[in-house]
């Protein structure tokens, strides 16, 4: 399976499983020749920020007296950045989290933090896989930071460096069975 099809199948799966919403397509549309790495930069920034915020939340909730206003402020940040990148599942968990903050429920916050952590790391793993495939595709094309799309529809009329939006629209998705083969690499191998 080509890198382009792997990428398309991964992203399609992330949409289908509720990890991403259409805001991610907004990011894809923003990528252009003047910013060929835009999506990967935003995704990387989101992952770093998200990890930092989750760490801060864990510290705040570990204290005997919880400052729920500070917890809420961090959750608000994570909710905002999740919404901006299309991280639907993380965003929705943050909405629940804020409700527990309003109720000043430490137990509720702790349980929801665990859910946020699970959802975030699931998403981060998929993003890391995405970026890895993107880079592999780039290497195939002689080191240029572009997607290895191969002949996708009217390739001559499209910018080959566009992120998977074009791949998805071209009908290059082979279906869920293909991506199962592509993503057999254990998540642990992608973690720092």
């Amino acid at each position, binding site marked *: 399976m080509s890198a382009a099809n792997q990428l398309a199948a991964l992203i399609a799966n992330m949409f289908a499983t509720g990890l991403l919403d259409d805001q991610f397509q907004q990011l894809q549309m923003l990528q252009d020749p003047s910013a060929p790495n835009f999506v990967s930069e935003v995704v990387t920034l989101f992952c770093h920020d998200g990890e930092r915020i989750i760490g801060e939340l864990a510290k705040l909730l570990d204290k005997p007296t919880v400052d729920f206003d500070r917890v809420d402020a961090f959750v608000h940040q994570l*909710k905002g950045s999740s919404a901006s990148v299309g991280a639907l599942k993380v965003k929705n968990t943050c909405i629940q989290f804020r409700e527990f903050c309003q109720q000043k429920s430490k137990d509720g916050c702790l349980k929801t933090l665990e859910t946020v952590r699970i959802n975030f790391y699931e998403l981060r793993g998929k993003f890391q896989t995405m970026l890895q495939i993107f880079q592999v595709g780039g290497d195939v094309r002689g080191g240029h930071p572009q997607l290895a799309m191969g002949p996708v529809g009217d390739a001559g009329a499209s910018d080959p460096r566009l992120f998977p939006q074009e791949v998805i629209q071209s009908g290059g998705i082979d279906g869920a069975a293909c991506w199962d083969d592509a993503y057999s690499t254990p998540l642990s191998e992608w973690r720092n």
Partner: protein
Amino acid sequence: MASKNQGSAPRALVVEDIKVDCVILMHMLHKLNCEATVVENGKEAVDLFVEGKTFDIVFLDKDMPLMSGPEAVAKIRAMGATEVKIVGVSADFGGQEAFMQAGADVFVPKPVKLETVAAMLEVMMLGASGEAPRKVDHESHSDETKSFAKMKPPEKEIKM
């Protein structure tokens, strides 16, 4: 305080403390050929106006350290900057009332979409050229851009 900028790239100010949101909005503005400046909180935004900087449009997040978006909007309007278009942005829908009461021209919920920003700039620049803004086709625009199409300078006196 003059803020009209006829015949050249629109000058935008982005006031946002969340890096991801900042990067995305800045990229949108660059894509739309704007000169964009970014600061991290309302106080830095107000400081720019105090220094005499002028902008055509300002995008402010609601919740920020040191000074919130609505507070900054109120201060900017109180300084006499009535022509600059101010857009309140927040993932919190409750922010709309706060921004509008402070003197913002329009509120846009996060996540902001490229077409929304594009429509705002189009209406703003057409207005700045002295021509009447063209009628916006409301059928083809989201609710956010419909709100922007009806944008006019704040009528309320800003109380400090």
